């Protein structure tokens, strides 16, 4: 392994996914996210955004192409993946804390590491402002609260790669904005290579260092667009001139593609 590939980040090369019948579903797609970079992936529903994410997460066994993290295949389980699904993926019969514990027990097994597990649980519940919900059950929580739990769980794993699949799309506008801010704050305190899938142009601009635009059917090369808005202070983003410029630009790319 060369020294350059050691901090290479997430590299997807020639990723092609076919349906069981052999018809192409996606690709070939290539994408490179540098280590500790956060990219947003935007595209119309059914274009294969989630499929691409699932392939990176190792949930799709049948695909052609290479997915590597720092030069090594992500499916050698060397790179830890924090997944935040749209439907939260919480176990309803476990409390908030126990949901985090179940995931942490996979990567920190054994009795000796109990303290570390518990420390991470309280640290990240605190970070997502839900420490007071630790003993509650998911069905008693609002959608926004449940998604906070799912995000806290992903952060608590201290993953190398974080994959978010339209995590805030089912939430109302106010809750979504709060969670976007909270997520970004936490990401800044612990930068992790992240791919954030969304169908919301504003969200793509607010949260991505670069914005990846996917064509319907994913049968074109991905467009990767620089995003100057990302370096602004989060509170100022929405009212900035760059934000409006960027919105127009993304919409134009989308119109041409779709």
């Amino acid at each position: 392994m060369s020294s350059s590939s050691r901090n290479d980040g997430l590299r997807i090369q020639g990723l092609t996914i076919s349906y069981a019948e052999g018809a192409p579903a996606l690709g070939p797609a290539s994408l490179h996210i540098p280590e500790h970079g956060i990219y947003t992936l935007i595209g119309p529903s059914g274009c294969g955004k989630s499929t691409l994410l699932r392939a990176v997460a190792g949930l799709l066994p049948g695909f052609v192409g290479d997915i590597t993290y720092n030069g090594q295949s992500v499916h050698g389980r060397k790179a830890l993946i924090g997944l935040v699904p749209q439907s939260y993926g919480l176990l309803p019969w476990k409390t908030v804390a126990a949901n985090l514990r179940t995931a942490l027990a996979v990567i920190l097994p054994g009795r000796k590491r109990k303290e570390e597990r518990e420390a991470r649980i309280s640290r990240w519940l605190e970070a997502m402002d839900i420490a007071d919900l630790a003993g509650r059950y998911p069905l008693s929580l609002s959608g926004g609260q449940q998604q906070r739990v799912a995000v806290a769980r992903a952060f608590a794993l201290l993953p190398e790669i974080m994959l978010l699949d339209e995590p805030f799309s089912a939430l109302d506008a106010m809750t979504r904005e709060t969670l976007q801010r909270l997520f970004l704050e936490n990401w800044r305190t612990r930068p992790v290579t992240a791919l954030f899938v969304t169908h919301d142009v504003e969200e793509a601009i607010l949260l991505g260092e670069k914005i990846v635009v996917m064509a319907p059917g994913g049968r074109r090369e991905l467009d990767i667009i620089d995003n100057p808005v990302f370096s602004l202070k989060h509170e100022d983003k929405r009212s900035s001139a760059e934000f409006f410029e960027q919105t127009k630009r993304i919409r134009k790319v989308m119109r041409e593609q779709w």
Partner: protein
Amino acid sequence: MVKTTRYHYILRILLVFLGINAVWYAAALLIDMPILPRPSAVYESLLRLGYAEMWLNVGYSLYRVFAGMLLALALGLLIGLLMGRSAFWNRLLDPVVYLTYPVPKIALLPVVMLFFGLGEVSKILMIVLILIFQIIISVRDGVKAIPGTAYEVLSSIGATALHKFWHVTLPGALAVILSTIRISLGTAISVLFFTEIYGTEHGMGFFIMDAWQRLDYPGMYAGILLFSLVGFILFLLVDALDGIFMKWRRY
């Protein structure tokens, strides 16, 4: 607030109990025949029973219900999990369950007696037959209803199949079992009565039919009351388990 509603609930149950006794008393006065003794006579006979005899009969009935329930749970859980997790087993077993589910299981009582004799085996087996199909179906549907994303989060960090089974599949299956038991418990107790009519000298079914044959009507009613009490206690037990394990659903 919660305390007063519970207090009111218990009060209502007590009132209903007293009401039933009042109606019973009135009916006994009206009919005035030995086949319907007054409540006082029945309670007197209940007290005369003696603890040893009472507990022996109640104990036998409870033992049969619990043995049948545990067997049905173990088998039903296994088959339900197989069907819920594996498309192959579901395809294979679904028609079997579908075809046998509507068969009134009590009609199989003579068959079970022919094959397994008149002893404990046929009694317990009948209860298993009543419960197992309900358990299989609800476990299968419970397992299928577990969101796929719950597995995916764990799969993507490399959780073993055992870890996923222990933390996702099994609790998902258990979550539905209590409500199934609550539904089928009534039927199981009724069937228990039938099976205790033959080939045994213990159990509530035997006790009631024995008193009936001896024309000991107060004793017979005492047996019915005791049998009802057993059923009531079993329901309270399910309620208590529900309170412990189903906390997550009560919102």
